[in-house]
């Protein structure tokens, strides 16, 4: 699990859509849709407002992120995590 140990398989998250009052910041955990990869959850490492995209990463050493699939368009982001309910 690439966000382990903070996020593990079976955890629940509540996400909020991105808007004027809820802007993205570095370090936010976001859920986004990526063609070929499906719906993913990762952490934002950098945001480029001019290009309207961000780079994401997992927190586990073997996880994939923007180094593998490139920057994520901000329009692909479904929301950022505002509540995390761990399984354990």
């Amino acid at each position, binding site marked *: *699990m*690439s*966000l*382990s140990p903070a*996020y593990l398989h079976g*955890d*629940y*998250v509540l996400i909020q859509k991105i808007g004027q009052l809820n802007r993205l910041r570095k370090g936010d955990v976001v*859920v986004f849709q990526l063609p*070929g*990869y*499906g*719906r*993913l*959850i*990762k952490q934002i490492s950098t945001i480029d407002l001019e290009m309207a995209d961000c780079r994401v990463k*997992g927190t*586990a050493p*073997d*996880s*994939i992120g923007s180094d*593998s699939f490139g920057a994520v368009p901000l329009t692909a982001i479904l929301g950022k995590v505002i509540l995390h*309910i*761990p*399984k354990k």
Partner: protein
Amino acid sequence: MLHSIISKIDQKHHFETASAHCDIPCGIYDPHLAQLSALTVIRMLDLMADLEKGHTVVDTAFRNSMIRYVAVKEEHAEQCKKEIRVIFGDYIKKDHIEKFPELPELTHKIFQAASKCRQAAARENGLELLALVNRFAEIFWATKGIETKKAVAPYKPSEEVVYPVL
């Protein structure tokens, strides 16, 4: 507490899921590497037995060859476990297990048989591993609706292998 309440709601309303993939989800799964690994284990066991028969003196050449055979046997027994683990962990879904309830036990047996191949030098261990992996391959292809056939591999150790009929 909160998790178990939400889990019950989830069971009824099926929340959407997001994956934190560590692997690139390429969708390429094939048990043939596990089968090749099992065949390699048997081949190494045969070479070890042949070397033992052919050598009367335990010299440097003997040790060198024996160590190489054992090292390859170790590597491929682990490789076999790894390939099966990836298919079972990433490809096999709940409905596959419902259709083939022997799958979890079969997978566990493969892991144990592969470890047995590392621990000892008996050929039967390798044959047992191959038989289990072949059964796993039959089930894997069946989950895709692809028929299989059994044929003797055209190379040593000349054992029977399950192939998909494509």
